[in-house]
């Protein structure tokens, strides 16, 4: 449990979270736009994503293990983390876009803006604070969830936590838990700051 190992595992942890959140945003963005245009599909999809969210994270890691191309290791961990990050991001994107004032949307249509112009020029800018809030929630929770990734060989700060549990050594557990908690607080603060800058 050298300081160098703490730094290495923190970096690995951050990397897992960054990839998962980034991938979730990339998947969520076009899906959210489609879902805002189709009410029935929206109810179904958000329902399914909601259910995924309720499955205990350790179980999701377990379910993914037997799948081809995944198995033990980082890729399984990342897929599971993406599934978890997806819900808050997708939901906030949908809510943010649908929450644009009806009068504003109507005048955009009435002024002869095309669907694409309304999306980029009106809906996304106005939904941006809500979208960012979703990314913030997803990032903070993923930092926590990612500690469990170590159980299936995903690496990251969870490695200390599981090692500490196995050795019944509180100090080792803390070596994983404290940096993870600090990371979550820092991410929350940083994204919160960006959010405030844009919502003023």
């Amino acid at each position: 449990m050298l300081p160098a190992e703490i730094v290495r595992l923190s970096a690995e942890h951050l990397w897992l979270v960054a990839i998962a959140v980034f991938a979730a945003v990339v998947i969520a963005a076009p899906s959210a736009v489609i879902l805002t245009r189709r009410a029935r599909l929206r109810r179904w999809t958000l329902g399914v994503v909601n259910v995924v969210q309720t499955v205990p994270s350790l179980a999701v890691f377990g379910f993914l293990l037997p799948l081809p191309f995944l198995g033990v290791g980082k890729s399984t961990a990342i897929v599971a983390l993406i599934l978890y990050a997806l819900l808050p991001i997708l939901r906030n994107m949908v809510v943010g876009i649908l929450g644009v004032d009806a009068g504003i949307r109507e005048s955009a249509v009435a002024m002869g803006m095309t669907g694409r112009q309304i999306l980029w020029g009106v809906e996304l800018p106005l939904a941006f604070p809500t979208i960012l809030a979703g990314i913030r929630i997803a990032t903070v929770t993923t930092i926590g969830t990612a500690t469990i990734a170590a159980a299936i060989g995903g690496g990251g700060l969870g490695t200390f936590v599981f090692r500490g549990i196995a050795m019944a050594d509180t100090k080792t557990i803390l070596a994983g838990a404290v940096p993870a908690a600090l990371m979550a607080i820092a991410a929350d603060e940083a994204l919160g700051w960006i959010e405030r800058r844009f919502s003023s």
Partner: protein
Amino acid sequence: MAVLVEFRGVTYQIGGREILHGIDLCVEESETVALLGRSGSGKTTLLKMVNRLVEPTGGEVRFEGKPVTDWDPIRLRRRIGYVIQEGGLFPHATVAENVGLVPKLEGWPKERIRARTMELLDAMGLPAPVYGSRHPRQLSGGEKQRVGIARALAADPPLLLLDEPFAALDPVTRFEMQQRFARLRRSFGKTALFVTHDIREALMLGTRIALLKEGRLEVVAPADEFVQARTPEATAFLATLGEGTLDESHAAG
């Protein structure tokens, strides 16, 4: 005078209920027609058929002699200014950006957009150096409404549609806005179709008044003849005018 907008036997059904029944109405160039009626009379639905925010379920609407369904909706809407309560301004854009929106969509050169925006803001009594860089949340209700009208006029459309534009304003500001609008309409020579539930406003701004009752046109008459109308709904509306105010608002119109 040429007919700019024509409703021919327009009906509208929603949820199995017909809320507009065979509306026939023409709006001629440079007149201002007030669609007067109670809430739920169908007046806003009728207005929104002109720029295809609502499609009639029967009959047709024509703009510049052509059925609106033959128009590309984007082209049609850019030829029609649209003003709603509170202006429907984009909160994330400045006043100048709001006003210059349609010219920008139309690909006008920057300098021309700037000149046009300044001209309109000046005409609305909102000098661009002071107001141009503000955001809508920094404006009063009356100022927002003026920006909304400037935005609707920006690309010099032949027709303005206004949906209860002054309803959310306090009485004094509303009166000032109505007077300003009446002056503007004369100086810009625009054709306008506006929805209102306020007979004073209809008499003051409308050159003709079309009274809607439960989806039917009950009276269509020039403002000075409208006050003589004796149909039940016209009587009900005229009764809301106190003695004295009748002459006053009539004179202003």
